[in-house]
C-alpha cells in the first residue's frame, strides 16, 4: 500500500482493515453499537465486505438486497441474489429483500426501455427509495453502503468537472436523518477498491466478480482510470483530493435546506407533491398499458 507506505501479511491485514473501518465510523460519528444498521448489499465485494466487517466489529448489521431483475446473459441478478443469501446464512444475520419487478411493475431493463431513462438513473432512484422505505418499515437507525474511496473520488471528480454545487453539497460520508429520510453512511470511505478486494479474498467472501452489464462504458469507470493513473504517479492523491474537498464542502451547502414533505401517494419524503418513485411507477404503468394495446 504505497499511499500508507505499508506492507501487511495475510494475518495482519484483517485487524488493520477492521481498525480503520472503526476509525472512519468514529471520525464521522456514523453509528454506535446499540443502533441497528441496514447494510445495502449487491453481492459485490464492497458491500459484502462491509457487512462482514461490521459483524466482525460486533455491530447489529443486517443485509438488504434489491433484486433489480438484470440478466445481461450472465444471470446477473440471480447470481448476486444467490451470493447475498448465502452470505446471510454464513453470517447468520437476516437479509431483507425487495424485487423491483413486483414493486414497480417492471424490472430495471424494462424500466430503461419503457421510460427511455439511462439504466443507472432508474436503478439509482429505486435503490434509494427502497433503502429508505425498508429501513423505516423494519425499524433500522441507519443505512450503510459499501461506497469506497475510488467511488467517492470518481463522483467528486465528475461533480467538480461540472461544478455541480447541489451534488457537491450532498457528497459526504454521513447524511443525517431528516424529515422521513433515514441517516446514510459510508464506512469504507477511505478504503481503495484494491483494499476491499483484498479483505474479501483474505476472508474468503464469495462475492460475484461479474460487473453489472449496464456499467459497461460508465463515465465513472473512465474517471477511475484517470484517477488511478494519477495515483500511480503520485500515491495518496485520491485521499488528498477527498479530504481537501471535505475541508471546503461547507461552502457549497445552502444555509436554507430544501424543504421536504410526504409524497401525496406513498408518504415517502419528497421536494414536490408526488415523489420521483411514484412518478416512475405511473410512467411504467402508462407505457406498459400503451404497449399492450
Amino acid at each position, binding site marked *: 500500500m504505497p499511499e500508507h507506505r505499508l*506492507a501487511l501479511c495475510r494475518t495482519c491485514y484483517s485487524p488493520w482493515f477492521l481498525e480503520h473501518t472503526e476509525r472512519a465510523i468514529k471520525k464521522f460519528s456514523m453509528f454506535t453499537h446499540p443502533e441497528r444498521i441496514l447494510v*445495502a448489499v449487491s453481492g*459485490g*465485494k*464492497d458491500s459484502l465486505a462491509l457487512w462482514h466487517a461490521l459483524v466482525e466489529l460486533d455491530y447489529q448489521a443486517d443485509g438488504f438486497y434489491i433484486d433489480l431483475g438484470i440478466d445481461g446473459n450472465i444471470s446477473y441478478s440471480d447470481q448476486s441474489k444467490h451470493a447475498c443469501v448465502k452470505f446471510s446464512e454464513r453470517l447468520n444475520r437476516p437479509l431483507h429483500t425487495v424485487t423491483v419487478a413486483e414493486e414497480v411493475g417492471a424490472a430495471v431493463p424494462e424500466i430503461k426501455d419503457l421510460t427511455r431513462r439511462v*439504466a*443507472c*438513473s432508474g*436503478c*439509482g*432512484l429505486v*435503490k*434509494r*427509495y427502497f*433503502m*429508505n422505505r425498508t429501513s423505516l418499515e423494519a425499524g433500522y437507525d441507519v443505512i450503510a*453502503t459499501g*461506497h469506497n474511496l*475510488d*467511488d467517492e473520488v*470518481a*463522483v467528486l471528480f465528475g461533480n467538480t468537472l461540472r461544478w455541480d454545487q447541489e*451534488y457537491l453539497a*450532498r*457528497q459526504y460520508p454521513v*447524511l443525517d436523518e431528516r424529515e422521513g*429520510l433515514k441517516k*446514510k453512511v459510508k464506512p469504507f470511505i477511505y478504503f*481503495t*477498491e*484494491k483494499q*476491499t*478486494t*483484498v479483505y474479501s*479474498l*483474505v476472508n474468503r467472501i464469495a462475492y460475484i466478480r461479474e*460487473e*453489472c452489464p449496464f*456499467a*459497461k462504458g*460508465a463515465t*465513472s*469507470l473512465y474517471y*477511475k*482510470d484517470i484517477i*488511478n*493513473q494519477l*495515483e*500511480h504517479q503520485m500515491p495518496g492523491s485520491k485521499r488528498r483530493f477527498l479530504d481537501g474537498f471535505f475541508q471546503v464542502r461547507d461552502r457549497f451547502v445552502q444555509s436554507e*435546506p*430544501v424543504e*421536504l414533505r410526504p*409524497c401525496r401517494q406513498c408518504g*415517502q*419524503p*419528497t*421536494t414536490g407533491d408526488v*415523489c*420521483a*418513485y411514484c412518478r416512475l411507477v405511473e410512467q411504467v404503468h402508462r407505457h406498459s398499458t400503451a404497449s399492450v394495446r
Partner: protein
Amino acid sequence: MPARKLLEQINVLAETVVVTKNEEIVTEDEMLEVGDEVELIRVISGGTGDQERGIGN
C-alpha cells in the same frame, strides 16, 4: 521478475488489480518464476446509480 514488472509489461496499473501467485495474494514486489500460476483479479467496479443525486425521492 517482480510482479510489478509484469504489470508494466502488459500495461496494467497496480491500483486496478490484486495479484495472486499459486492462489496466494502477493505484493507487486513478489518475484514470479517460470511455472508459477499467476492470476490478476480486477478490482474496479463501475456504475454509481445509488450515489446521492438529490434530496428526497
